[in-house]
């Protein structure tokens, strides 16, 4: 059993960034726990470029290059192959390691930065058999970029989020043909011109308004059935890649004492990234699905700044939180509560949100029923919504509410 100032769970961009900031701030006793053999998180197997813009003074780099840069920048010891099995009050983190077995590591503060995963086929309740060849983008990337293998030869990509285009690039890299990219909605979820790139640069048919109805095949995927324009069609393929539908990786929180927010799927936090246990903080994509690695890096840094204050007993007491509520079509808003009375010069906190369908109208921030801020917006699913909260009163507040008055 060892005790540290800060125990960081998860060695992806958010956790590594937090480690870096803590060490720079003079917190020497920081340890990062990483369950994989290498730290770096999800970018480790995103073989394509586009990472690190605005974070490192460098041109955009590939995911693995970016992951290595993050690891090198962390500046704190990273314990790889260390699996956290439970978290208990008092900053007690139960771990296990292949060579040393179970142990307890205690942090004066604990930062959760365990990231996200995609929704697999099972949780999407897709009909049909369960043959080989059904996977998520991340699994495909690991096959291709980490293990240099080709799990299927001809795939259908389900979904059109940003990550779905990453699946296309991964398939292209491995020489996997993509029979089609399908999307239930009437337009792609990612920003245009993603579909144009898919169609014209990658030669992949993008079928919107198309639902995957069933997967067929005994040992391997043989066909899929899709529904579009009121009819059913069969597509031949030996792989189905389910993309996106991200959810926070809360495996270790499932039996913990922390409050989870069912709408984000992650732990509920206040504006200091502090969980319901004041010793525990959370940052990065664990907080919600899903943001870029760059934003996770930024959050890790801000969370670490708050942890520094917490270690100095300079963070406001969390005992009188003001809940943040919201209404449809908003899907989630976080932080889920505000600790009012802000004597410290923290960066002005932001509220972040998503909608569960396309909508336009006036987005409003209300404090005890009084409008503090509003703006006319056109909102799309999976797009980040940012609401400034610097006008929130610092005392005497009961409730914060975010709503969209639709046109």
């Amino acid at each position, binding site marked *: 059993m060892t005790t540290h100032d800060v125990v960081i769970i998860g060695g992806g961009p958010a956790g590594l960034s937090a480690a870096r900031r803590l060490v720079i701030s003079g917190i020497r006793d920081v340890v990062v726990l990483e369950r994989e053999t290498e730290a770096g998180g999800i970018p480790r197997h995103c073989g394509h470029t586009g990472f690190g813009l605005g974070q490192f003074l460098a041109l955009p780099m590939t995911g693995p290059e970016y992951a290595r840069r993050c690891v090198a920048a962390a500046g704190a010891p990273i314990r790889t192959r260390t699996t956290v099995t439970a978290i208990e009050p008092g900053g007690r983190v139960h771990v296990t390691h292949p060579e040393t*077995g179970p142990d307890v590591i205690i942090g004066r503060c604990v930062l959760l930065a365990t990231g996200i995963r995609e929704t697999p086929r099972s949780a999407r309740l897709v009909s*049909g058999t369960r043959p080989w060849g059904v*996977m998520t983008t991340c699994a495909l990337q*690991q*096959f291709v970029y980490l293990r240099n*293998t*080709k799990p299927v030869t001809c795939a259908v990509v389900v979904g059109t989020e940003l990550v779905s285009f990453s699946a296309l690039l991964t398939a292209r890299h*491995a020489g996997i043909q993509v029979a089609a990219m399908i999307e239930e909605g009437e337009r792609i979820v990612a920003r245009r011109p993603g579909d144009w790139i898919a169609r014209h640069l990658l030669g992949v048919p993008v079928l919107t308004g198309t639902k995957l109805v069933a997967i067929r095949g005994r040992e391997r995927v043989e066909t899929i059935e899709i529904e579009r324009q009121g009819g059913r069609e069969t597509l031949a393929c030996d792989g189905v890649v389910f993309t996106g539908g991200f959810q926070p990786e809360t495996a270790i929180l499932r039996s913990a004492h922390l409050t989870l927010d069912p709408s984000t799927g992650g732990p509920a936090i206040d504006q200091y990234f502090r969980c319901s246990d004041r010793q525990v903080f959370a940052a990065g994509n664990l907080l919600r699905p899903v943001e870029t690695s760059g934003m996770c890096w930024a959050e890790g840094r801000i969370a670490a700044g708050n942890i520094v204050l917490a270690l100095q007993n300079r963070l406001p007491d969390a005992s009188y939180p003001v809940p943040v509520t919201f209404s449809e079509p908003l899907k989630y808003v976080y932080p889920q509560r505000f600790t009012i009375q802000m004597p410290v010069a923290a960066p002005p906190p932001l509220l972040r949100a998503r909608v569960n369908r396309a909508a336009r109208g006036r987005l409003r921030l209300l404090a005890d029923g009084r409008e503090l801020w509003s703006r006319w917006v056109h909102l799309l699913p999976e797009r980040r919504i940012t609401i400034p909260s610097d006008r929130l009163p610092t005392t005497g507040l009961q409730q914060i509410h975010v709503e969209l008055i639709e046109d």
Partner: protein
Amino acid sequence: MSYDVAIIGAGVVGCAIFRRLAMGGAKTVLIEKGADILSGASKGNSAMLHTGYDGMLDSLELACVRAGYAEYLEIHRHLNLPLLETGGLLVAWNEAEAAELPTIVEHAHRTGLADVHLVDEPELKRWEPHLAPAALAAVAIPGEHIIDPWSPPLAYVLQGIAHGGEVRRRTEVTGGERKLVGWRLATNAGPIEAGVVINAAGNYGDLVEAIARPSPFRITPRKGQFVVFDKPAARFVRSSILPVPTERTKGVMVVRTAFGNLIVGPTAEDQEDRADAAVDEAQLRVLIDQGIRKLPALADVTVTATYAGLRPATQFKDYQIAALPERNWITVAGIRSTGLTGSLGIARHVAGLYSQHFGRLRDPATPIWTPVPNLAEHLPRPYQQIGYGEVVCHCELATRAEIDAAFAGPLPAGDLGGLKRRTRCMMGRCQGFYCSARVAELAAGRLADLPVRSAA
């Protein structure tokens, strides 16, 4: 090569019979057409150790379930097989169902289960506070427990092998001809000669039976779909929540698993296809809805997996087990939903038929125990010890040591499904998001037909 006995079908029933006969000294071969054991009906069930509280009086099924239950309790520690002692609560959700409960208790008493009793609403809600308010009353069945569906048959086969039995996988029986004594079975892997053939072919039972005689029964696979909820759901119930049964099925249950999940199911759908265990979105949604209606907290828990099993139902209610001495054949068919519990009892019964008609079996004075790796969450697992190599599957905490073990020994995993059933890898909430590529890498060269190529 000639054997005393050839058993066709390595489902849980075939595996248990194999164990019993091999331990009894018969030269036994277990023939399975799949790449691994449990590739048919036995791979998808509810993993309950049934008491037989609702069993048909004087039926062979009830006798086998009782004997199987008792033997499992006797041997499970020797084979390192789990027992999650939940007990069952058969819950009435309306007045009509509540009115049936006394009859159920009375029936259970007549089967010999004296500890089955009525539970009133306050006691029910004290014991199961998360049940929906509509729960009115219940019947407690204290002995109704949970086991692991895959490890017991594996342990049975391994014990049979330790006692001299042989297993032939990827071997499909395509026909057979009578010899002077016994049979010469035609298979895709060459002929197999045996003095006695035991038909334990599950969903193919009537087709295999036709080798010996016009089958007196017809198998109509009955599909049961299940939804597996993520592990947080398991803490919402202590007991297995059972429904008041209907004429056709035991109904939809809400039960924990040895692996720490909660399952809701099964459906009961008759179908012609003997292999197509497809799930169906509409049915899965119905199951989820039923689960939430009984246990509202399930609404906030994600689904980990879905699966379907095919139960080999016949037109008869009871098991179809018979010895045909003049044909050197034993039929073991129509083992629908109680096979996991009943298997050890069935094996005893079949061993009795065998010694009565075909040859003496001895009781092994010193059985060789072949403990299997534990997969149950409430018992120690390798990740809690030193030297497990690496955690390969983070959701289920399946380790490199367990995967290596699954490829070692006399019955290594025969396909990916077999590996998953031996280790739980890729079976957790992420369904291979994190581990499938690593699992494939570890399995490369060990699983013949894993369709993963080196990238060009």
